[in-house]
């Protein structure tokens, strides 16, 4: 069946709510309204108001309550209406959820999923465009995923719901209705911790995740006569699939990392450092990064485009690296 990225998210939640009576969805306006983006449309009617729960505007509570439910064997999905608001639940994520198992000496697990729309490109301005994944990749005890396709959106969300650890799931709102994909009927799980080789190539590797995967793939196709590009989609940012990253870096000898989150302190720095350390002998050029400029994501279209990576910047960066 042909589904959009957001429909894949809705299907994953619907199927897991039906499969396991311990699964709940809690968030602002997720019930009758079906969520600000309609990710949960129809789910309350189908699964009941006790399990698809409209919450007060209280992100700290939403995450904390999720931890309380998780200790009782429930598996809550906690929606941040926009991922930007996750900062209001930050303490509960990093200090309560991420430490729960550790500080209880392994007595319990913390099967919560915190999900919400991230990313820019839709003129959402400062508070509706953020990519805060790096904040959470610094926190042991969490898992962080960022699907780029409808298939992965569904498969990773289902895996996240079934995972016994807290998973932060960054869905990209730019992709919600812009991409469609044929998804097989029946059970679909994408394992957390495995990257996807989106395209094989000989000359140069682009490592990316989230919405930029599509721009990178287009660049790889457009430039195919010029340079043979390999594309690695990380999919999981914590833990990163280092085996896939290093294998591709060793194969092509040139690596460009592309992400929409800003450059300084972003995931790209970590990936670049690991490659530089472990694959130095096999490299034919510097590990390069293309990311958002080090500012907030601005509102006006020309400014937003100036700040975020786009097709043109990706092509330019690839040419620069290929020239080494």
């Amino acid at each position: 069946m042909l589904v959009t990225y957001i429909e894949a998210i809705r299907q994953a939640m619907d199927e897991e709510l039906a499969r396991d009576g311990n699964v709940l969805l809690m968030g602002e306006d997720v019930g009758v309204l079906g969520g600000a983006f309609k990710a949960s449309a129809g789910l309350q009617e189908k699964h009941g108001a006790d399990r698809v729960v409209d919450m007060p505007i209280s992100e700290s509570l939403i995450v904390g309550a999720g931890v309380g439910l998780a200790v009782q064997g429930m598996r809550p999905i906690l929606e941040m209406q926009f991922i930007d608001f996750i900062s209001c639940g930050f303490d509960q994520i990093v200090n309560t959820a991420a430490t729960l198992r550790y500080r209880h000496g392994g007595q319990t697990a913390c099967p919560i999923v915190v999900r919400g729309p991230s990313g820019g490109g839709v003129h959402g301005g400062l508070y509706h465009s953020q990519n805060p994944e790096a904040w959470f990749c610094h926190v042991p005890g969490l898992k962080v995923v960022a699907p780029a396709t409808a298939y992965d959106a569904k498969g990773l969300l289902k895996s996240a719901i079934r995972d016994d650890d807290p998973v932060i799931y960054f869905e990209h709102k730019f992709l919600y209705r812009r991409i469609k994909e044929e998804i097989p009927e029946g059970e679909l799980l994408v394992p957390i911790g495995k990257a996807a080789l989106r395209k094989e190539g000989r000359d140069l590797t682009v490592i990316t995740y989230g919405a930029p995967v599509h721009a990178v793939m287009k660049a790889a196709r457009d430039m195919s006569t010029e340079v043979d590009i390999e594309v690695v989609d990380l999919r999981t940012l914590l833990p990163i699939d280092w085996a896939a990253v290093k294998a591709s870096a060793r194969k092509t000898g040139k690596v460009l990392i592309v992400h929409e989150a800003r450059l300084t302190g972003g995931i790209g720095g970590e990936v670049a450092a690991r490659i530089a350390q472990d694959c130095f002998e096999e490299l034919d050029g510097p590990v390069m990064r293309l990311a958002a400029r080090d500012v907030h994501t601005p509102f006006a279209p020309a400014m937003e485009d100036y700040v975020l990576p786009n097709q043109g910047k990706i092509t330019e960066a690839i040419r620069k690296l290929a020239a080494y």
Partner: protein
Amino acid sequence: MTEQKDRELYHWLRLIREFESRVSALDKQGKLMGGVYSGKGQEAVTVGFCHDLRWDDWIFPLHRDLGAYLVKGADPKRLMAQIFGKRDGFAKGKDSYLHGGDLANGIFGSTSMLGATLPVAAGMAYKFKIRKEDRVAIAFFGEGASSRGDVHEAMNFAGVHKLPVIFVCENNFYAYSTPNELQFGVDNVADRAAGYGFKGEVVNGNDLHNVMKTAGKAIDRARKGDGPTLVECKTYRYHGHSEHDRADYRSEEEVITWESRDPISLWEIYLEKRKYDIAALRKEMTEEVTRIVEEAVAFAEGSPAPAGPEAMEDLYAMPIDTEAR
């Protein structure tokens, strides 16, 4: 109250006092690392709210509620090992004091972000409600933590859904050194309950009878599905915020006044009125609680210190080893 219950309550008051006194002494002897947050003086709140709970009810203690662990059923030996940072502690040495809960006994370990357990308690109570279980969750917090957003968020949600949760504010008048008049603009934290649509009560937290009466009503109300209660217990901590705090922001006169309202002395006065041989009972109880504490200390001292590599355990439900790849 039956004679047996009179004795039991006395046992818990005395055990907590003895346990905490011993912990303070161990700290002074340099045998402990990290912070020690004595609840000495606040024992009646703990005993009053925890004694009549069922094993499958849950408590969310604050950092000063060591006694709540004991009354709710935690093994004193393991609790002492926890304080020593040993392998037999609830956190297996990964953190000390009350950051490791005893989940098998319904005790949730707190973080140092005080008040952060209230949303967790509300979430758990939500489960009790939707699964129609007549269980209750009790979240303890200090009057200082009442200034935090999490406290408001949890109470607001609990009020919306009439959750079986009890919020117990242990108002000991100082958040570290900050007095109440610099913490909030109302006389009583419990006055806020009206804003959340449930009952608020203020009690003398040093009078065990008072606390138990109020606790009993609140627990009953929660079990019956009548929703949350916010109970504010006015009490006093004898020690500073931690053992390293000399608490000279308080007047000597104030401390003496509160010592004259000591919860254990008040209970002994009650026992005397009930014609118990208080001298004999006191002696007997001293022997009983001293033995328990001695055994706990011996166990904790004998418990192995965790080895460095054990730091990598218990992080994830299924260990992930990213470096090995």
